[in-house]
């Protein structure tokens, strides 16, 4: 592990033709950043759209993975690095055609300035820009509907800014020095007279408070949607003089997989417009994560996508390992892959069961689908001590070795039980008449649209795009295994169900090889290090989580805590496609479309 003295990132702020892309978009790139860790280009705000358009059209960088922001006002290396502007909007672009690494763009603006919205080039920036606006207060010029998605209209301040303190604020960073003060402990609740976790502005009068009305884009029926669409189900209303209404589903609704809200404008039963509304489980992972030490965030990642805690552990561990150059022993790599693939099988069976739940086959198919899950959770419990929140991986390996006899149990699961149960699900569901009638041709969106909306994971593979990070940019040791990327061309609900079954079979294939080849030896290379200071820099690492592309963006200023910790959540960004996929179909189909995206609210709202 590196504990070297930080090298200041090289920054040259002069416009120079020597920078890449300045020959095609003159004056676009005005500097470099983070040369030592994750090389990035600093882009002039007014040239951003031209550069993005060039990268998308000419260089085939068609996938905008992540949009986020960093508040550099408290950055320790700021004076050295010479960052004048307070906010830094960060874009990560990938190519689904070429595969490989990313292009990292930074756009710096002072407080109060706006950034041009990327939604005209990449529609998938929609929700992510809303999130940045919500948490940092940066306005995106040209965004169709910039609103607070995670908090509510009227919330006081922008909580991710470094100078915004929460009600229970104690100190900037953990571990807190005054946890056991000489004068005795205190309760946070005693600090505020009303004894709860809220603060109010000076001079604010609660009696005259009126909640601002938030503009949700379904308040008017959109022009040109619905009747003149080419989709088959539209136009059934005929010549009746009808009026469209807005239907609200959630946040307490059995179809929404948790606390999620959909606003749908419907005419008859046909959806004309649909907009997701979230934030009901916004648990401030990022704010808490920036107070924590690096390792303290590991158990918090369990609670992002709480069905797949092992995958989240893996993504976070890989990000910090890249940032701090930590080696991972061979055995740990195998253990990680075994855990990640077991998790994928669990998730896909779970999601298949609950797609059927949404179709109206209440409970029974889901009970079949999650029966084997309990046995896999027993395997997780044996290695980590916990069924659900495993907290198993560490930087440089895994926290403890496999217990005796574990491999035999896992081999029995993988060789005997899992193939059988997948075949059983296939037999029960795939030919089912209702499944075909409800699933075939419903929720269609073309592969091009899905990629433009930054959708990832099984969703795009069910639209015929063979894009899987395990092949496109292999991490861990995935390049050693023999497996396929299944694709289906239809891009409807049935394909989204079936692709998960096929992927689970491929996971079983990887598991068989990994359990056969796993070597002995060391499982953790950094046993004696609990706190460490990675060198100054940043890293963006993504893994193919079962729900899609899970990315972690971390910025270090050579301290024991992350300066910035951002999660690129696949469930959240896949919701970009919910509205476009549901429009033109029945309201009952919108419920299944949501189920087939396979969201988990812990990850959507974070």
């Amino acid at each position, binding site marked *: 592990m590196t504990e070297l003295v930080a090298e200041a990132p090289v920054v040259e702020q002069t416009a120079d033709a020597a920078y890449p892309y300045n020959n095609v978009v003159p004056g676009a790139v005005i500097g470099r950043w983070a040369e030592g860790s994750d090389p990035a280009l600093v882009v002039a705000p007014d040239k951003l759209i031209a550069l993005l358009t060039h990268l998308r059209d000419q260089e085939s960088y068609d996938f905008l993975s992540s949009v986020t922001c960093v508040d550099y006002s408290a950055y320790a290396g700021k004076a050295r690095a010479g960052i004048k502007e307070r906010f830094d909007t960060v874009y990560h672009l990938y190519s689904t055609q070429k595969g490989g690494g990313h292009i990292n763009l930074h756009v710096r603006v002072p407080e109060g300035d706006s950034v041009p919205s990327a939604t005209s080039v990449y529609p998938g920036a929609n929700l992510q820009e809303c999130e940045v606006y919500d948490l940092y207060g940066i306005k995106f010029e040209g965004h169709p509907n910039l609103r607070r998605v995670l908090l509510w209209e009227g919330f006081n301040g922008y909580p991710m800014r470094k100078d915004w303190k929460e*009600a229970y604020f104690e100190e900037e960073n953990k571990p807190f020095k005054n946890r056991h003060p000489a004068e005795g402990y205190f309760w946070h609740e005693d600090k505020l007279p009303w004894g709860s976790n809220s603060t109010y502005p000076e001079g604010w009068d609660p*009696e005259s408070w009126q909640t601002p009305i938030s503009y949700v884009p379904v308040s008017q029926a959109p022009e040109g949607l619905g009747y003149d669409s080419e989709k088959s189900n539209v136009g059934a209303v005929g010549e009746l003089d009808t009026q469209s209404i807005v239907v609200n589903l959630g946040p307490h609704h*059995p179809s929404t997989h948790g606390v999620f809200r959909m606003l749908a404008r419907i005419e008859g039963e046909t959806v004309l417009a649909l907009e997701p509304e979230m934030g009901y489980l916004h*648990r401030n992972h990022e704010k808490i994560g920036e107070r924590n030490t690096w390792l303290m965030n590991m158990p918090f990642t369990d609670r992002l996508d709480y069905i797949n805690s092992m995958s989240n552990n893996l993504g976070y561990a890989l990000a910090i390992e890249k940032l701090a150059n930590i080696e991972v022993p061979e055995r740990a790599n195998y253990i990680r892959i075994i855990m990640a693939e077991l998790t994928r099988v669990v998730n896909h069976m779970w999601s298949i069961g609950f797609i059927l739940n949404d179709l109206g086959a209440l409970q029974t198919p889901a009970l079949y689908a999650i029966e084997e899950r309990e046995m896999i959770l027993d395997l997780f419990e044996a290695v980590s001590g916990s069924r659900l929140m495993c907290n198993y991986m560490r930087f440089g390996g895994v926290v403890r070795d496999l217990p005796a006899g574990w491999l035999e149990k896992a081999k029995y699961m993988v060789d005997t039980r899992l193939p059988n149960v997948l075949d059983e699900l296939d037999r029960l569901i795939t030919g089912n008449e209702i499944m075909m009638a409800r699933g075939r041709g419903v929720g269609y969106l073309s592969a091009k649209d899905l990629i433009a909306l930054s959708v990832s994971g099984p969703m795009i593979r069910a639209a015929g795009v063979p894009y899987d990070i395990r092949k496109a940019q292999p991490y861990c040791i995935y390049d050693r295994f023999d497996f396929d990327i299944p694709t289906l061309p239809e891009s409807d609900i049935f394909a989204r169900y079936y692709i998960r079954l096929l992927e689970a079979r491929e996971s079983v294939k990887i598991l068989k090889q990994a359990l056969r080849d796993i070597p002995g030896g060391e499982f953790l290379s950094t046993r004696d290090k609990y706190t460490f200071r990675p060198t100054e820099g940043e890293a963006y690492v993504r893994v193919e989580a079962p729900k899609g592309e899970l990315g972690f963006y971390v910025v270090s200023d050579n301290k024991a805590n992350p300066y910035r910790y951002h999660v690129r959540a696949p469930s959240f960004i896949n919701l970009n496609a919910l509205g476009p996929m549901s429009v033109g179909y029945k309201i009952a189909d919108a419920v299944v479309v949501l189920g087939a995206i396979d969201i988990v609210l*812990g990850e959507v709202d974070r």
Partner: protein
Amino acid sequence: MEDSPATNFQDLKSTQTQNYLHDTIQVPDDLQANVMVTTLDKVYNWSRTSSMWPLLFGLACCAIEMIATAASRFDLARFGMEVMRPSPRQSDLMIVSGTVTKKMVPAIVRIYNQMAEPRYVLALGACATGGGPFKEGYNVVSGIDTYIPVDVYVPGCPPTPEALIYGLLKLHKKVERQSIAKVSWYKKNTSEFIPIPVLGPDVFDPRQVEMIREYTLGAGAVRGPAAAEVRVLPQLLTADQKAHLEQVRARYLAKVKQPA
């Protein structure tokens, strides 16, 4: 000893029931083997504990363990609880399964108000009990009991299905101790309506408006060095401030207790 059903019944009567029932209940001879005598409370509570329908309502991670509890391995149907009702009107028990956020708490209180008496609340997991690992977060309510009364707390992050079942059995015990003659929900005006929290600059409880006004607009007593800030930042209160706030609290309680 003669071993007939009738004798057994007489034995049962003498050992299992209270004495005064012996003389008042006359059971015809041909029905003696088919009648069991018990108290009304026992029947009432037995039926309620054996069909306590939970609200189908998942908040966060703990909801996954709640689903696992209802699934085949742990089988909540053994307790007559597998019928999860999505409508608060049809359910007896609200399992608050996960982190309660400020954005969600108005909806939870509204759902609680819509539940018919007798209603019970079980706080599942560390978050619903007291904020859990996310307590310090700006959008997290530190425990649902700051808004609605809770009957059983189940600790854990997340609690295992066994822990949830243990909590449910504890709730059954609580129900079994209640008496139909004394329970509050058959009396007039006893079902409490909880005012819905409002999403302002931060969430606030309508019951605390006066207290908040004292703090943000009121006398200098509650202001400290942080008054210069735009937002009122938390600070440890002095004894004077605490006494002043106690007065405000007492004023509020006096106002609430007066009939409307």
